[in-house]
């Protein structure tokens, strides 16, 4: 893959880094790739034209507009960005407000941590959108946040603007606190049974209905000119439930058992709304027709089960079987690590259930987009959609596939070559800072032992260090740049995904590189491992 600017020819890495990705106004064309559009078939030697962050054209032999940045992706695969429908990254502190049975007053969007290295790590795995959910400690949990992994932007910059709002529900062991014993003196939290869980949800909607009525009455009376009416109390907990009742907020419900899911669907229908997705949904295959009839999506793991009693009745055919019955199915991660290879998780549905390539990839692209109500914007490579794209060196369903370049809104947010190249700078800056600190310590000691010494900093030393510490928002390799990967193997593009050539494996998965590809900054412990946490 080479990058050149038609007319100007060379675009240096430094220029791009300084300007922050490719400027949005720029026109970019990715050429000679195998374009996996997902919704409109696969285009061999295809091109994608990006203009102002949107996909402008998709096809063969597209005309290169003058001034466009040209990215030659010969031998590479271009897919839509991966969408993770169940994530807990990028949240400061806990993702669970586990103290109360109904925590709908909370919202993870209010505590986003745009500096969480997990964002960058997942981005490097091709993820461009994540549905960041509250944990599953409560029958009714907190509000979610659909984010784009725009590493380097602030919390507002992460938000997927216009994505429909949602809320987390949870059924089963976690909300009934099966595996949590409070310390002595603390009474156990209601509910303690599956009956109690559904009761809590029902009661919350009864309250929400009443609450809505009290506000409707108040507004009616004030509109009619009545004065001095006592205003109802604004309840942060019930506001989002009213939105659910009005169909303005999606319910993403953590669920395992078929009976509970049926129960929740019936309850929703009774109150006049629909569940948008069941998360985990390990027994979804048992009730796929009912799910399809309700219109609920299933967001599941590829083959992860047995980690608690209610997760035993799972089969890896789950995703395929739900799909066959007309349920929109996505494969999610629930883990900052697993998110990095969701493409491979999707590939497992080909083995278990015989999904074809497009169906498999859909489960981490267009299907989660539909489930999150953002399919008009992302999830496939079509003109008019956001240019959220991943260049893979192999077919993304191959175990040898490694994302090379990841675009969001037409900007390059991750580039493998650039990342590898930047690590030396990171080391250099670290060393310089450590030495500067040591020098300062030494000086203060010297000063104490001999107070007459002048307190002057060597200006050269200071300057040298400043020069090495540019004002990047956060770590290491945070500056996206353009890749110049190895000359591609022309055979790679024609390979059937599950059978790559051994030669390729050597080239791409040599131990050395694999070790290097570990991000230099150790990620903080994943939120899913929070004490007493319960996201599964």
């Amino acid at each position, binding site marked *: 893959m080479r990058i050149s600017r038609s007319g100007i020819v060379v675009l240096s890495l430094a220029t791009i880094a300084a300007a922050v990705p490719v400027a949005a106004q720029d026109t970019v064309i990715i050429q000679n790739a195998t374009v996996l559009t997902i919704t409109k078939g696969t285009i061999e030697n295809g091109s994608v034209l990006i203009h102002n962050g949107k996909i402008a054209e998709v096809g063969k032999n597209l005309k290169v507009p003058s001034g466009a940045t040209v990215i030659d992706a010969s031998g590479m695969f271009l897919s839509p960005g991966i969408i993770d429908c169940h994530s807990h990254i990028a*949240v*400061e*502190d*806990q993702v*669970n*407000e*586990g*103290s*109360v049975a109904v*925590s709908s*007053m*909370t*919202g993870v969007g*209010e*505590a*986003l941590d*745009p*500096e969480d290295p997990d964002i960058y790590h997942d981005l490097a795995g091709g993820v461009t959108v994540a549905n960041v959910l*509250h944990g599953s400690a409560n029958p009714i949990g907190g509000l979610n946040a659909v984010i784009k992994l725009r590493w380097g932007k*602030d*919390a*507002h910059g992460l938000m997927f603007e216009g994505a429909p709002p949602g809320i987390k529900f949870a059924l089963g062991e976690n909300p009934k606190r099966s595996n*949590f014993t409070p*310390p*002595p*003196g*603390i*009474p156990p*939290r209601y509910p303690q049974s599956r009956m109690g869980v559904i009761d809590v949800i029902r009661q919350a909607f009864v309250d929400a209905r009443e609450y809505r009525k009290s506000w409707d009455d108040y507004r009616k009376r004030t509109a009619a000119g009545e004065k001095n*009416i*006592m*205003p109802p*109390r*604004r309840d*942060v*907990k019930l506001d989002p439930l009213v939105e659910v009742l009005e169909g303005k907020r999606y319910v993403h419900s953590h669920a395992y058992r078929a009976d509970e899911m049926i129960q929740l669907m019936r309850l929703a229908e009774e109150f006049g709304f629909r569940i948008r997705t069941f998360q985990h949904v390990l027994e979804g295959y048992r009730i796929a027709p009912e799910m399809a009839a309700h219109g609920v999506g299933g967001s599941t793991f590829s083959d992860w089960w047995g980690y608690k009693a209610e997760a035993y009745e799972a089969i890896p055919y789950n995703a395929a079987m739900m799909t066959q019955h007309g349920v929109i199915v996505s494969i999610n991660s629930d883990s900052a690590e697993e998110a990095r290879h969701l493409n491979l998780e999707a590939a497992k549905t080909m083995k278990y259930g015989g999904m074809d390539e497009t169906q498999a990839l859909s489960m981490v692209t267009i299907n989660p987009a539909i489930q999150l109500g953002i399919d008009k914007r992302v999830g496939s490579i079509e003109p008019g959609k956001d240019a959220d794209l991943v260049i893979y060196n192999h077919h993304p369903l191959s175990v040898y596939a490694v994302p090379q370049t990841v675009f969001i809104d037409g900007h390059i947010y991750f580039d493998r070559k650039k990342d590898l190249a930047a690590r030396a700078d*990171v080391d250099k*800056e*670290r060393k310089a*800072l*450590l030495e*500067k*600190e040591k020098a300062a*310590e030494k000086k203060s*000691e010297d*000063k*104490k*032992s001999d*107070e007459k010494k002048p307190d002057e*900093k060597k200006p050269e030393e200071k300057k040298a260090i400043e020069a090495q*510490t540019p*004002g990047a*928002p*956060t*770590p*290491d390799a945070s500056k996206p740049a353009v890749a110049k990967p190895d000359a591609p193997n022309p055979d790679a593009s024609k390979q059937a995904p599950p059978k790559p050539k051994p030669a390729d494996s050597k080239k791409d998965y040599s131990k050395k590189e694999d070790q290097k590809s570990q991000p*230099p*900054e*150790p990620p903080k412990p994943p939120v899913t491992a929070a*004490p007493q946490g319960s996201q599964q």
Partner: protein
Amino acid sequence: MPQRNLCRSAEILALSIWVLTIAALFIGPDAQAGEPRYFAITNARIVPVSGAVIESGTVVMAKGLIVSVGKSVSIPPEALVIDGKGMTVYPGLFDALTDLGLTSPAATAGGAHEGGGGPSPSRGPEDRPNTTTWTSAADELKADDKRLETWRNGGFTTAVTAPKVGLFPGQGAVIDLAGDRPGDLVVKPNASLHISLTPTGGFFGFPGSLIGVIAYVKQIYYDAAQDAQAQQIYAANPRGRERPRYDRALHAIEDATRDGRPVLLPAVTVPQILRAFDIASQLGIKPVLYGVTQGYAVADQIAAKKLSVLVNLKWPEKEKDADPDAEESLRTLRVRDRAPGTPAALEKAGVKFAFYSDGLTSTKDILKNAKKAIDAGLQRDAALRALTLSPAEIYGVADRLGSIETGKIANLVVTDGDLFEEKTKIKFVFVDGRKFEIHEPEKPKDPPKGTMTGKWKFNFNTPEGAQEATADLTMDTDGTLSGSIVHQYGTSTISSGYLSADKFSFSFSVNMPRPTDVIFSGTLDGNTAKGSLSAGDFSTEITGTRPGGRQVENQEGR
């Protein structure tokens, strides 16, 4: 005329004896309340902060106020004249956020607890968890807190003190750092309302997460707004109406909103600072942000929001107990390197900022850390302003404090040189026009052998049985000790201590319940220490161990 003076002298004498007696009883030996209250400092370099420096001028104080300042002002005959040749007079320093004078943490309601016996864990915002908005620092003050003197000796005459514990710990007060009774200290009660965003509930009490805390803060603000409206409607015509519920947690919030009192909101990192903007707009308030360690990266955005901030002078440091082999991330190193540049960045962006000492236990460190900000590009006069006039403006007391101007409270600090130079000594401090001479703390005679730095466990027997105290000590290279000690009666700051050869000594004040000075002294031997403690008439043997070992061994070896 002579008659009257005589009378006054007699009066002063009587008063002096009385005050001295009281002082001896309650304050200890350093109070000098019997001195005259008319002073003139002449021939001094005067830095008024609000105006140009007067290279050789006079400040006249009378009955606690500055009555004149200038190059040549007339000196009233009753004034005690201090020749200020070679001295510099600054406004007394103002620590913008402390808990000085507040010794016992405010009682909390509704938080989580580990064992039985306490209040039930909070079950939601309606339980008002860890909320004591009604607690007023001015009402809880103790004039005999040893730290008042420690701060005063460091040149501080003024502070905002506020309860610390909980999500809404209470209301802060502007206080002067000297007075016989708590009421004497207070300059402005209920000067501020404080919010903390640190979750308090654990996993079993609400709120146990940051998202829970943010939800709670929003809910209580909405409740306060609704309460204000409902109370008004009810008061106008109670008949036939259900009465609004009485909720004392809401009143201080309503007052703060109505009077435009500063509301303090914590924000340390960049995401936290930007998040605070969102919280503020949801609450409909213009908060004063505190912490602001990473303000260097977002100074312009703070300026655009027109917010004032309090900058914590405790710059991030390498953890004392850090694993020496652990590799620190570049991010951590960058923050540590750049944090002292925050004040300079704020100044450049035009943000009003004041300094505070949270977490620093020695006033020397406060000025030393302010100097680090100067080294990182902050103008000296801006640093001084952040310790004088700016906090006064932020808390709405600039009409009486923060600069050397006629009519303002006579809070001054007199030094023998530039305030931010380490060798500079503080000669006098005036608080409310009362003169305090500063005694240099006792210095160790010999260079230290070994180090006391580290976490110590001290065991000793008392009439109440065996007791244990844990001290977190930091030793300077010259042997000076600082830190804090946790004991049966709470936590105390170590006020003076040193290691001289292998002999150590440090002291602190304990409320049990009356304030008592406790002195630990003895001999250091590797990771153990043996000696005695004395508290009033009582003394006993102590043994200390340092389970974590000598923390700076490597450093010493080099």
